[in-house]
């Protein structure tokens, strides 16, 4: 157990189950454990972040609890009424659940972080269930980066198809990100073309982020990309096509060739 979790402000209890089979957050052993804890202890709400693990495990637990999950909520109106984006964020639905046990995943960027100190939760060990998992974890390849994490970075610099190559992505996007102490992001086009890694994709099918500053370089602004970044506080777009849809939502748009504008911007940001 992380002893620090008992100090998170707002928590009253930290339940911990230890066992090798929980090591990789596989849903087959985790979902029955959650079901058992929620049922035996009488909880009314089961909540997790809408992360890769939350999206994998919670629906399985929801089905075991016979609960109709509410995914990726962005606002809470009452104990049973929530708001969530649908259609790639182009509409917001307010939904009320009649389920006794509410299973919910939460969009991280829509809520403030709880303070990591100031709480005094009680720790309680719970029995690990001994169900065998039909799935085993073989390994992972996590991208090593010294840059801020894309999901939580206050600033993000993203590159799109107009970068034309992985070399240009590295040459133009990364130094600007570093100068701004920003995370690097990418459009799907840039990822599919192999200019940037999958994990950097911002959009409906990648990360959904809301940094203070989002700089979109050579990104046209397809609906699916906008779904991942349109809640950013300030959006800057650099694109040579003045008709690009990204300009309709950018706070500051610069119609220019990125190969001239980005080095100039880098120069001036460094000063």
């Amino acid at each position, binding site marked *: 157990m992380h002893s620090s979790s008992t100090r998170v402000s707002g928590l009253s209890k930290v339940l911990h189950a230890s066992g090798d089979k929980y090591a990789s957050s596989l849903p087959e052993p985790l979902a029955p454990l959650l079901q058992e804890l929620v049922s035996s202890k009488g909880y009314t709400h089961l909540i997790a972040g809408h992360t890769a693990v939350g*999206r994998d495990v919670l629906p399985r637990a929801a089905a075991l609890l016979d609960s109709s*999950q509410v995914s990726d909520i962005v606002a809470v109106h009452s104990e049973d009424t929530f708001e969530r*984006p649908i259609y790639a964020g182009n509409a917001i639905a307010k939904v009320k659940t009649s389920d006794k046990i509410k299973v919910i995943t939460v969009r991280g960027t829509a809520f403030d972080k709880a303070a990591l100190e100031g709480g005094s939760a009680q720790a309680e060990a719970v029995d690990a269930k001994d169900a065998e998992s039909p799935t085993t974890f073989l390994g992972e390849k996590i991208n090593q980066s010294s840059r801020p994490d894309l999901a939580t970075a206050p600033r993000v610099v993203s590159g799109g198809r107009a970068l034309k190559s992985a070399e240009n992505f590295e040459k133009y996007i990364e130094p600007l990100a570093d100068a701004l102490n920003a995370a690097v992001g990418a459009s799907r086009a840039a990822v599919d073309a192999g200019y940037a890694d999958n994990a950097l994709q911002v959009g409906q099918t990648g990360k959904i982020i809301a940094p203070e500053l989002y700089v979109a370089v050579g990104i046209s602004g397809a609906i699916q990309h906008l779904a991942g970044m349109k809640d950013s506080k300030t959006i800057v777009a650099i694109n040579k096509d003045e008709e690009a849809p990204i300009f309709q939502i950018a*706070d*500051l748009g610069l119609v220019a060739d990125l190969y001239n504008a980005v080095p100039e911007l880098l120069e001036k940001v460094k000063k």
Partner: protein
Amino acid sequence: MLPTPAHQGLSLLVGVKRCVDYAVKIRIRPDGKGVDTDVKNSMNPFDEIAVEEAVRLREKHKDEISRIAAVSIGPAKAADVLRQALAMGADDAIHVEVGKDAVLEPLAVSKILAAVTAKEMEKNADEKEAWAWHLGKQAIDDDASQTGQMLAAKLNWPQATFASKLDFKGKFAKGEKVEVTREVDGGLATVETTLPFVLTTDLRLNEPRYASLPNIMKAKKKPFQKLTLKDLGLEEDAKPRLETLEVKEPPKRQGGAKVGSVDELVSKLQEAGRI
């Protein structure tokens, strides 16, 4: 007569959903309770990837894949996406038809798909026959990302979600292993799971094919089953638990301002305290 083979291989069930086309700019209905869906609809893009993966498996392991069945739950028009799946290479289609305005949540869909699975497994009572479901990782209308996981829970099968690579290591029989690479936050994870199982597809698993005209014509002759919730005994169990109180536009951005130079951009960002 040929001797009966020891096992017939893998039966693949593929879930497909008819959704508002991804390129359509959606409109909120005047009653504020939903989105206008009387626009261009097509197969959910993640489901196209699920069908494609099934068809590619058969192209690679011809004799081991005994059947690819496409399954859709929806109004009469959902038949369109089933025909597309048949034209892409599925062998037969199963349409669970519901009313035009029926609301089906992923939980209900998982129950229906589990009941369809049981029905199909019963028809083919070969003990050694292996089964698997391919589904998209999410539908682009409700963006819920729940159905595959819920179906796996209902069937008590393992799940491999957000798959970007699929590798059958052994034979296509019950209990055999499958290696799946999954897209997770920060990178990729690899798991080994066991047949039968539920797969949900991520974007990078493959590039779906277009159905050719001859294949579209051939698809019209393929078997097409129709079922109702009544046939499956799920009229009550499929009822919605969630009530949509309101659907509204997301907050509008005040975008559109352009700057004339990099200098102006830098000074505006400094003024706003962003750099």
